[in-house]
C-alpha cells in the first residue's frame, strides 16, 4: 500500500483508487486519511497513541450506526457492550468530534427499554450533541411516533431536518417509512419537496452532508439496499461542489464516488452483515468471536474549509 498518490485522475489531488484500496483494510485496524487531498495510511494504534500528531481540520464529527440495542442472538449476544466499546473509541480520538451522527437502527424492536438503554449508553459520548435518523427497526409498530418523541425535536413530517455547522449544511432524511411492497427505501413527495426548498437558498459552494439510514444509491436492490426515489433527491444536489452522503443499514463500509457526490456507508456497532450476494440473505452474520470487533466500527469525518472532499476514516473496534 503506497504512502503517495498513485493516480491523480481528476486532477484534484485525490487518489481515489488508492483510497478505495486502503478503505478495504480499515476494518482490520488501519486508518486511511485524506489530508488536503494527500492519501496516507496509518495503523490505528499509532493514531490513538498520537504518534501521527494532530490532524488539522475545520470541523470533525463522527458517524456511528446500527447499534440494534435489544438484539441478542449468536452474531453478537451483547450489543450494548460493543456499543460501549465504540463510544470508548470515539472518546479516544485525538480531536473530540463537534457532534455525532447516528444513522439509524438504534434499537432492534423499537421498544421503550431499548431506547432507554441506548440513550443511557450514549450519555458517556464526549461530544456536544448527537443527531439521529431512524432505521426501519426504530419505527416498527407506531410509524415512528416513539422515535420522534425522543429524538425528533425540531424535525418536520416523518422526522427530516437540516442544520448548519462551520459553513457546511447537514441534512437528515427519513427513508424507512411508508415502504411499499416489493420496494426499497422511500423518501416520498413531501420530503422531496421540503429538500428541494431547503437547499434552494444555499450557495453552490456550500459543502453538503446528507445522512439517512438506507443507502441512497443502489448497493444491492435484491436485498433492499437502495432507495426508490433517491435519484430525485440527488438531482436537487447536482449543482453543489461537494456532496457527502452518509448511510448505515448494510453493516459494512462501502464507498462510491459519482461526480460531485461521495457515498459512504458505515459499519454497525452491533453485528456485521454479508457482502452483497455472498449469503442467502442480508441477515446478521456470525463471525469467529475473536474477529467480531474488527468488523464493527465507527466513522470519523474531517472537513477542511475550501477543500472539496471530506476526509472519511473508518476504524474497527479492535
Amino acid at each position, binding site marked *: 500500500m503506497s504512502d503517495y498518490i498513485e493516480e491523480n485522475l481528476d486532477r484534484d489531488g485525490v487518489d481515489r483508487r488508492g483510497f478505495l484500496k486502503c478503505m478495504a483494510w480499515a476494518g482490520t485496524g488501519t486508518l486511511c486519511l485524506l489530508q488536503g487531498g494527500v492519501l496516507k495510511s496509518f495503523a490505528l494504534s499509532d493514531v490513538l497513541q498520537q504518534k501521527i500528531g494532530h490532524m488539522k481540520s475545520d470541523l470533525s464529527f463522527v458517524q456511528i450506526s446500527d447499534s440494534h440495542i435489544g438484539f441478542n442472538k449468536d452474531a453478537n449476544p451483547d450489543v450494548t457492550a460493543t456499543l460501549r466499546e465504540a463510544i470508548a473509541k470515539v472518546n479516544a480520538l485525538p480531536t473530540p468530534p463537534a457532534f455525532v451522527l447516528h444513522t439509524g437502527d438504534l434499537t432492534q424492536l423499537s421498544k421503550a427499554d431499548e431506547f432507554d438503554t441506548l440513550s443511557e449508553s450514549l450519555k458517556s459520548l464526549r461530544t456536544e450533541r448527537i443527531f439521529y435518523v431512524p432505521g426501519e427497526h426504530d419505527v416498527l409498530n407506531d410509524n415512528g411516533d416513539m422515535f420522534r418523541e425522543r429524538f425528533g425535536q425540531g424535525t418536520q413530517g416523518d422526522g427530516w431536518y437540516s442544520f448548519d455547522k462551520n459553513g457546511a449544511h447537514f441534512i437528515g432524511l427519513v427513508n424507512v417509512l411508508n415502504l411499499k*411492497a*416489493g420496494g426499497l427505501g422511500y423518501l416520498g413527495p413531501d420530503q422531496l419537496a421540503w429538500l428541494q426548498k431547503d437547499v434552494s437558498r444555499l450557495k453552490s459552494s456550500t459543502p453538503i452532508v446528507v445522512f439517512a439510514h438506507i443507502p441512497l444509491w443502489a448497493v444491492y436492490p435484491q436485498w433492499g439496499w437502495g432507495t426508490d426515489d433517491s435519484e430525485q433527491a440527488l438531482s436537487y444536489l447536482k449543482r453543489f461542489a461537494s456532496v457527502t452522503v452518509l448511510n448505515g443499514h448494510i453493516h459494512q463500509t462501502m464507498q462510491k464516488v459519482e461526480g460531485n457526490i461521495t457515498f459512504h456507508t458505515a459499519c454497525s456497532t452491533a453485528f456485521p452483515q454479508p457482502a452483497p450476494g455472498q449469503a442467502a440473505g442480508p*441477515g446478521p452474520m456470525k463471525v469467529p468471536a475473536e474477529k467480531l470487533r474488527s468488523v464493527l466500527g465507527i466513522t470519523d469525518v474531517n472537513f477542511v474549509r475550501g477543500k472539496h472532499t471530506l476526509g472519511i476514516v473508518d476504524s474497527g473496534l479492535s
Partner: protein
Amino acid sequence: MKSRTKNRTTAGIFAMTVVALAALMVTAGASPQSKPASGIEIKIDNFSFGPMRLTVAAGTTVTWTNDDDVPHTVVSDDKTTFRSKALDTGEKFSYTFTKPGTYAYFCSVHPKMVAEVVVQ
C-alpha cells in the same frame, strides 16, 4: 400469544382432528393443488416467506411463524386487510381468510419480502 410448548401426543391428536374437519369442509370443486383447510403454517426464515404462494380454501386460518433472527411483519399490500405487529423470533400471527381472492402481502420492515395467499 400462542403457547409454543405442546407435548407431541397432544399435538398429534390436535393435528388429526384438524385434518378430519378439513376433509369434511373441502368442496367438490377444489383444485388438486389445494391444501387442507385449517391450520396452515407459513414459515418466515432467511428474509422470505415459505411457501411464497399458498392456495387455501375460504375459511382457512393461516399462521405465520417467524423463525428468522430479525423481526418481520405480515402486511397485506393494501396495508388494511391484515397487518401484524412486528414479530420477533418465535412469534406468530394468524389471519382467517373468509373471502375468495388473491391476497398479496409483504414484510413492511423488509419490503422486498413478498408473497401471496390465494383463497378459493
